[in-house]
């Protein structure tokens, strides 16, 4: 029996990489990392997922880039960032110095660009994993987004996997607004993805009824925040059910430890926090503390025992041996 002062084993695995706890920042929600390190020690996170790094510097989209929506927000930042050279020269070394585990998100417009990024990152010290942002327009396919096309996604993953060092896991980040997310997930895993991350922000739009124009300069933007959490839970549920052995990084509107637990029960073994960081700079640490409390209250000794637990057959006890075997850990 678990005594109150005993702590829950919060360790988790992103493929074979051990993380001290399951809470990470979500890609594009922590700038360079330096901003949040003013508030807390980044080494206390499971990992820091960087913004999506591109080959060349990117100025991003014009303003307005943000519109608040009920329980969420739309953003069209447009992957503003310094480009891979400056990232490797300044941002990654600072994350490593601070003791953070860095999961580097990459974004490209062609298979060749993703591959070139992977080649550039292959020998960089301190890359704990690569996350492949597939929600980018494919310039070789009339701008069709990679994440909507299982074959194109698989091609990117296969090429990045072949280029990265064998001991650095490659994670495919999936979009929820696709015809069949399980088909894309399967294609990515078949292509070589060691893990999956979901969900990227689905496209949304809002119109300012005073100006009678779209609220965002770009017109459409990614919808994030608690408004999309049910969408995230559905995607996690479907993909974990279809591919129970594949580790999944879950994200989508996590504001509290309860929200994180919901994603874990659906099948996530790592939980990323995005929009909540704009509301509360300490969100990650608070969510981690709340999650640990909730697991303790429910009698869990290990976080791993809760992963995908909602999938157990009706009537089964909460912690049968079979559940542990079915979990992704």
């Amino acid at each position: 029996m678990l005594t109150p002062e005993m702590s829950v084993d919060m360790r988790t695995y992103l493929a074979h990489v051990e993380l001290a706890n399951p809470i990470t920042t979500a890609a594009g929600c922590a700038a360079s990392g330096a901003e949040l390190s003013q508030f807390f020690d980044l080494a206390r996170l499971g990992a820091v997922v960087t913004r999506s790094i591109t080959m060349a510097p990117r100025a991003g989209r014009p303003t307005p880039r943000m519109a608040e929506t009920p329980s969420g927000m739309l953003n069209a930042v447009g992957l503003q960032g310094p480009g891979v050279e400056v990232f490797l020269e300044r941002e990654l070394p600072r994350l490593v110095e601070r003791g953070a585990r860095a999961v580097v998100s990459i974004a490209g417009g062609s298979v060749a660009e993703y591959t070139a990024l992977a080649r550039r990152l292959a020998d960089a010290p301190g890359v704990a994993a690569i996350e492949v942002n597939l929600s980018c327009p494919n310039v070789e396919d009339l701008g069709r987004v990679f994440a909507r096309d299982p074959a194109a996604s698989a091609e990117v993953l296969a090429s990045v996997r072949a280029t990265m060092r064998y001991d650095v896991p490659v994670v495919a980040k999936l979009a929820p607004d696709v015809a069949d997310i399980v088909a894309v997930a399967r294609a990515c895993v078949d292509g070589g993805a060691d893990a999956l991350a979901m969900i990227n922000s689905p496209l949304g739009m809002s119109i300012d009824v005073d100006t009678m124009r779209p609220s965002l300069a770009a017109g459409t933007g990614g919808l994030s925040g608690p408004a999309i959490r049910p969408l995230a839970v559905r995607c996690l549920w479907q993909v974990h059910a279809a591919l129970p052995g594949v580790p999944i990084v879950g994200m989508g509107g996590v504001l509290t430890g309860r929200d994180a637990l919901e994603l874990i029960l659906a099948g996530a073994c790592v939980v990323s926090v995005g929009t909540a960081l704009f509301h509360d700079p300490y969100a990650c640490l608070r969510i981690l503390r709340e999650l640990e409390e909730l697991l303790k209250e429910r009698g869990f000794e290990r976080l791993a025992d809760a992963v995908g637990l909602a999938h157990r057959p009706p009537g089964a006890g909460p912690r049968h041996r079979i559940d542990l075997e079915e979990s992704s850990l």
Partner: protein
Amino acid sequence: MEETAVTPVQVTGTVLTTRRVDAYHALTVVAPGIAERFRPGHFVSVAVGGPHTSTLTRRAFSVHDVKPDYGGTVELVFAVRGPGTSWLAERKARDTLDLVGPLGRPFPVPRDPCACVLVGGEYGSASLFALADTLQQRGCRVDFVLGAASADRVFGALRARRMGETTTLTTEDGSLGLRGRVTDALPSVIADARADVVYACGPMPMLRGVTAVAVEFDIPVQVCVEESMACGYGVCMTCVLPVIGDDGVTRMVRSCVEGPVFRGERVRFEDIGTIPFDALGAPGGRAQEGGAHTRNVS
């Protein structure tokens, strides 16, 4: 040139007093950690809607006043413009507020005494009084030019009259002071005061106009911009505007971290709301590699 960084803190502040000031609301909040670190030009970001809010983006406000009472208080001045600010306007004494601050790059102040003209538009003038105080302590002459659309939207006229060597007020409808805009009155104030520097805070078109006047007089101008932002501490990347760096390269920089105070002539006001074709990383543009002399674009 980097300002000495001030580390922001997140505090649960208690509302001490609330008051209406003409068209605006003012809230005084006990927030010692923020008050003791504050310098003129800093701002705070406030979570709105309470603990189970569905409005997740924080609201940024410049600080009107900092006082040592109760360990340190900050006063915020704002206009009700949406659900967040209307929630804030309903706060009462003893309510608590989630504040993060002090944030941003404060106003640089001159080392030696000089003549300064402080220009405020609407409630933007709120952030000028702490600055005027600092400048006067350093022996600077301070002249004010405050303006707005109408008399009830000119903030701090009385205080400006008490503090300033001269105070010029402008309203577009002529209900207070001169009819017109601050930029109409500014040239003669600069000339009369033999001003060495201009500081301005207010709506973007006003800052653009003030910068043009200062450039004409060939004197430096520091502008404090107001851009919509979601966080205030540099992670949401939504409050960017095109600013020319020391190396002559235009970058899309965050008004919360690299600003909110910029040298006016460095801000490409006419290009706000666009990505200038020659900005670092502009679409279709020649990618300029970040070399050793290039400042980080983040």
